[in-house]
């Protein structure tokens, strides 16, 4: 069965600095990888996904993620963080041969002015 690890419960960055939220995965077969963001008292919003092709995926709100097959990672990045990026971020993985999508435990990003 597939699984996802988000090794950091909390990431703190200063506004304007680059941010990285880490994600590693385990799956048999080729992975489909997703990032979602959850703002307080809201549902999850889709940010971006990797299916195939270019390892660098660009998504909403200036976020991007890089698929690294050898390191089984899919880290979320943004060149310049905004205070409004502060939220809970979830990485998710689905294998290319079943419907079951697994979410990581989430990483709380705090961007300070």
């Amino acid at each position, binding site marked *: 069965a597939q699984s996802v690890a988000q090794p950091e419960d909390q990431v703190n960055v200063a506004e304007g600095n680059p941010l990285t939220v880490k994600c590693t995965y385990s799956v048999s077969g080729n992975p489909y990888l997703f990032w979602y963001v959850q703002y307080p008292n*809201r549902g999850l919003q889709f940010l971006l996904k990797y299916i195939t092709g270019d390892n660098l995926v660009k998504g909403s709100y200036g976020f991007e993620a890089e698929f690294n097959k050898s390191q089984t990672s899919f880290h979320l990045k943004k060149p310049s963080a905004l205070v409004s990026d502060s939220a809970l971020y979830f990485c998710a993985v689905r294998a290319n041969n*079943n419907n079951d999508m697994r979410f990581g435990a989430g990483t709380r990003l705090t961007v300070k002015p």
Partner: protein
Amino acid sequence: DTAVSQTPKYLVTQMGNDKSIKCEQNLGHDTMYWYKQDSKKFLKIMFSYNNKELIINETVPNRFSPKSPDKAHLNLHINSLELGDSAVYFCASSHAVGTRFQETQYFGPGTRLLVL
């Protein structure tokens, strides 16, 4: 114009009661899901329906019973509520997964259930 909607948004009830949460999507999707998010924000799938047919049924107490009257609706009925059922329940939908496992899931705003 809400894509995935859930009612109620908040639900406070006593132990032992039976309650239902409703979910509707207007995205034309064929697959719908229920997730439970606990107090530590861990998100766990409970059920998935594709065209009204159950395709994922994780290890969930049988007090939880999903019902899909049509492919735009997936309701969650909970019998004999327990304190541990307190959580946020999210509904989601996607295009039919079938062999298209890359489909994105779209989430509702959540129902915050508190069992006293």
